[in-house]
């Protein structure tokens, strides 16, 4: 089976974020980067499927040169080859453009199964996977927490609101976006880290794959304004109640 897994490199979420000088994204300097958490579930599931059925598993990522380090982790986890789309301005691109770039690469490749994370930890749009499926004319099943392939159909469970799960079966080729709880990603073992060095990792310029103009721009990125501190009332209970009622009447619409 030909399988594709799309991953994104994101900053470690424990980092201290600063707004970039142009005010449109975060400042990349002094950040430690890693694989987007949801993409780790995607890679693990893709590797398991490949181990089950054989075939070839390609990992794709878009971004500057440093994303290759994250791709190496995916290769060390079990992907067979990597396709790096070299793009130093990926952060300025909207989900439609990003999905378009991947679709342009994937359209002639006959992938039977595509995995993505359900969203990225930094942008969090949750759109690239479904847009990619649409562009390729594939069914998309989102936020999966269970996955099986019986040789004919993919059987997955989706997470819905309120703890409810939906069981979905789908004929391939299909795209799946992966949610927390799907699996426990493996550690890349040392021998596999060493073997990853010898795996194919090609780099394509983004200009070769980007066929559309960017429709959506981020105008401004900012930290939420700090709310003023709360008001603490002290004193006797009886007078506290009166004062509280007074404040609620005066400053809110809770009491008329």
């Amino acid at each position, binding site marked *: 089976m030909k399988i594709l897994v799309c991953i994104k490199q994101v900053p470690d979420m424990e980092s201290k974020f600063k707004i970039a000088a142009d005010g449109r994204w975060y400042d990349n300097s002094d950040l430690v980067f*890693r694989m987007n958490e949801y993409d780790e579930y995607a890679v693990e599931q893709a590797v398991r499927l490949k181990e089950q059925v054989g075939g070839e598993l390609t990992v794709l990522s878009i971004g500057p040169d440093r994303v*290759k*380090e994250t791709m*190496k*982790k995916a290769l*060390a986890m079990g992907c067979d080859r990597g396709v790096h789309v070299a793009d130093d301005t990926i952060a300025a691109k909207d989900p439609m453009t990003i999905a378009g770039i991947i679709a342009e690469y994937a359209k002639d490749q006959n992938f039977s199964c595509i995995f993505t994370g359900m969203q990225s930890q930094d942008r969090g749009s949750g759109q690239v996977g479904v847009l990619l499926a649409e562009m390729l004319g594939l069914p998309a099943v989102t936020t999966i927490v269970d996955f099986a392939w019986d040789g004919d159909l993919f059987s997955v469970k989706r997470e819905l609101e309120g703890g409810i799960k939906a069981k979905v079966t789908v004929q391939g080729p299909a795209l799946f976006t992966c949610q927390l709880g799907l699996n426990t990603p493996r*550690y*890349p*073992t*040392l*021998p*596999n*880290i*060493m073997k*990853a*060095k010898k795996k194919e990792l090609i780099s394509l310029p983004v200009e070769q794959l980007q066929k559309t103009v960017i429709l959506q721009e981020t105008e401004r990125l900012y930290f939420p304004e700090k709310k003023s501190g709360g008001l603490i009332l002290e004193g006797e209970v009886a007078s506290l109640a009166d004062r509280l009622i007074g404040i609620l009447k005066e400053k809110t619409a809770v009491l008329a």
Partner: protein
Amino acid sequence: MKFELTEEQNLIRDMVREFAEKEVAPSAAIRDEEERFDRALMFDRLGELGLTGIVFPEEYGGAGADYLSYAIAVEELSRVCASTGVTLSAHLSLCANPIYLFGSEEQKQQFLAPLARGEKMGAFGLTEPSAGSDAGGTKTTAVKDGDNWVLNGTKIFITNAGDAETYVVFARTDKEAQKHHGISAFIVDKGTPGFSFGKKEKKMGIRSSPTMELVFENCRIPLSQLLGEEGQGFKIAMKTLDGGRIGIASQALGIAQGALEAAVNYAKERKQFDTPIAKFQGVMFQLADMATQIEAARLLVYNAAYKASAGLSYSQASAMAKLMASETAMRVTTQAVQILGGYGYTREFPVERMMRDAKITEIYEGTSEVQRLVIGSALTR
């Protein structure tokens, strides 16, 4: 000169750190408290991750990585649990490595490969009651008798003893020869008749790593289990310890790093006089010194590891690395306890364990005094 880790080395650090934080750290305090070695976690899991044979070629079950990768792995394990760090270091540097360096092809297939794959755990028996820093004073004997060597004597303070399956043991084979020349090295399997274990040591630190006596009473092993040549034992021991020092230096480095991080986190949270204590220069400057000393030690350790992988002479470099890293670990952990104050002195926080763990790094695999001897005698030769 390039001060940058390769992609593989970064991946190895990330992997070992994630494993150490998720799986090793949670039980570090309780294992220390109970003086309990957890083989499944502290050794078998390392084997599954490919850490037990990091530096050996794939044909012998290894991962074919370099010494710097090994140093990083021991550092990251020791950052959360020094006992797990030394388990790997003693296994790899002291048991598997001499077999790799001095073993015959048959010995490598028979003994090294299962060690490297993590199927068997290794230990190293050199120290005796009257032969510590003076390894030439070895009194354990090995006498040839027909198809066997017959071993008699006692080894003490042996890391991994009891749980390990494979032991590299040193014994005197020639009583007439000058003290350094009459010693030979042997590979002994656990379970060999005449080979038993004495008392388990109750230690100040690295309490989750087992330390025991090895007792040999007319223990017969095949002639084929002589490691290297007869009389070559002292040289094998010294060469082995050169490598071992990289492991212990890395362990000390990891302990120091763990203590620094604990101290920084605490100092940022802990408020006195309405101010986080990290903002007081008295504390801030201490943290700055700790970080600077650790970085200096790290460069020495990585340099020694680099030289070992590049095939350069590294005896001096590893002695300097071990001396610097172990003394840094002792200093930094003591300061970390001071910064945490009363809390630091309790077992609620990890720094008192780290301080107890740090002390041994100034003692085993060559005391700080022996490291100075190694460095100083080369200078004044």
